[in-house]
């Protein structure tokens, strides 16, 4: 049986994925925090991706496949640390993959890497430039990770590498920025803007990752869910009340609140509440016949409080 190493296994999505993969694979994982009560058959190593100890996991566990989803996606620990863990951790991981005979690799990137701009076309394909850092420099680490992984596809063609860029992931267990945002009772939005947003359920995302592994996909793929709705509809459907604030007020206020640690999102994130960032998932569907099981209503239901 093949052995899969999952980075970030103790996160909500990592746990779901581990359970999903247990049917077909031996599963081991690394994370910065332990996973209390993990299922039998899963071994969890508490390591930092940047440290030498991470290499020992490759040495002792001898995995044949890797799913890389161990990223810091919030800003609580500071921008510098986030950037370092995400980018340098990915670099280390890619090096280990080449040195320890990994056969397939799935890198769980993000749909945010395209950036939110007024001139964005609808349903961007994978060849669209990754411009997020132009207006949202705080997430340039995600763009760098994606670029590192995409370059890896061409440098080491014998390793089946796929880079997945999912749309907004929602669910009961996953910790996503968008999930935290929608779970607020009063959800701040930018007055006069209501972009279309795509969502996908956490279980469907795990299924997509598993499919990418099983098909030995190679390349970059957007992963999309059942469809798109305007932001305000998403907020109402997930049980919140939109609180539309004028932009000239929102920007300076939230910028200060963020700097003082009272608000979790940098102001660059505001553009994602103004302009549509919609992806075309056609390439992934063509390659794997992926069909998502969860509809929009179930997705919003899962983040209702």
């Amino acid at each position, binding site marked *: 049986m093949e052995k899969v190493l999952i980075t970030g296994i103790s996160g909500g999505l990592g746990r779901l994925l581990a359970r999903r993969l247990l049917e077909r694979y031996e599963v081991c994982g690394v994370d910065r925090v332990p996973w209390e009560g993990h299922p039998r058959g899963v071994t969890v190593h508490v390591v930092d991706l940047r440290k030498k100890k991470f290499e020992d996991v490759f040495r002792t566990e001898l995995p044949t496949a890797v799913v890389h989803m161990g990223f810091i996606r919030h800003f609580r620990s500071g921008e510098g640390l986030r950037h370092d863990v995400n980018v340098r951790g990915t670099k280390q991981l890619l090096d280990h993959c080449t040195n320890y005979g990994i056969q397939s690799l799935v890198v769980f990137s993000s749909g945010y890497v395209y950036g939110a701009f*007024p*001139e*964005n*076309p*609808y*349903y*961007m394909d994978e060849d669209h430039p990754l411009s997020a850092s132009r207006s949202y420099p705080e997430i340039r680490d995600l763009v760098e990770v994606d670029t590192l992984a995409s370059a890896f596809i061409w440098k080491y063609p014998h390793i089946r590498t796929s880079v997945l860029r999912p749309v907004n992931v929602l669910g009961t267990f996953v910790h996503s920025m968008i999930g935290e945002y929608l779970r607020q009772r009063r959800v701040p939005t*930018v*007055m*006069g*803007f*209501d*972009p*279309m947003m795509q969502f996908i359920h956490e279980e469907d995302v795990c299924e997509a990752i598993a499919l990418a592994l099983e098909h030995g996909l190679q390349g970059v793929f957007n992963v999309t869910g059942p*469809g*798109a*709705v*305007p932001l305000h*509809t998403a907020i109402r*459907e997930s049980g919140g009340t939109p609180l539309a604030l004028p*932009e000239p007020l929102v920007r300076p206020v939230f910028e200060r609140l963020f700097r003082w640690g009272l608000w979790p999102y940098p102001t660059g994130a505001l553009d994602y509440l*103004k*302009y*549509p960032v919609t992806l075309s998932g056609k390439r992934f569907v063509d390659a794997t016949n992926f069909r998502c099981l969860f*509809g*929009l*209503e179930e997705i919003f239901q899962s983040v209702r409080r």
Partner: protein
Amino acid sequence: MARRRPHRESSALRDLLGAFLPLAVRDVGREIDERLRKLPTRLNEYGYDAFGLHLESVRTAAVPAVLLYRHYFRVETHEIERVPAGRVLLVGNHAGQLPFDGLMLSTAMLMEAEPPRICRSMAEYWVPSIPWFNVLAARSGVLVGTPENCIAMLEAGECVMVFPEGVRGMNKTFGKRYKLQRFGLGFMRLALETETPVVPVAIVGSEEQQPGLANLPRLGRLLGMPAFPVTATFPLLGPLGLWPLPVKYRIYFGEPLHFEGAPGDEDAVIQEKVDVVRLAIEDLFARGLAERRGVFR
């Protein structure tokens, strides 16, 4: 159709307001519902299509548009049946400081064409950054004018309205009325790529609706707008100064034109094909100007 939204207060408010509306307006609303019901659309469970179109918003926007269409601009359309079914590009002249020509053309396609069509139009890149207006535009079928969006629309078999003069036409001065400004070439490349028929459209009337005295694009750029027109009433009376005069609109549809060739050809080759469309619009202008008795009648 869409699942009924459990959207309470606003519908109660609508019922209350509806009770005070004149009968004529209610009739228009009912007529629009009738037309919208004939539309083939792909909406999700929340009533939106993949590009943000929302039929209930179209209806809300269509009521004042139809009232303007019938009673203010008293629009006459000619040969609207020339617009073929399936994907098509409507290419028209653009004038009048505010895009009432686009509004009237799409109202014509909704109310007069058989079966009714929703015009999808391609907007300037700055439209999505205008608060409120961008939402209204998206809900009624407007998309940012990127080639990707236009191709997606045409491949979905939609009717796409383009004004290749762009702001050059919309904010031109009165002396240039009925003189087509330089056409952008993009629409022709897209027509070639997707093998879409092009229907030339001449809108007679809009060119006099708000005579421009000057255009100050530099001042406009300072304010984040692509142009800054000066008219007898703008900026003197504020934004309301751009409200159009009650001119009479005449919309003429030409024969569909089919083009062949490589979409990536050099500009000169594409330009020749674009000139065919321009000439067709100029012919329609000549006819329209000869047929009318005056600007307001």
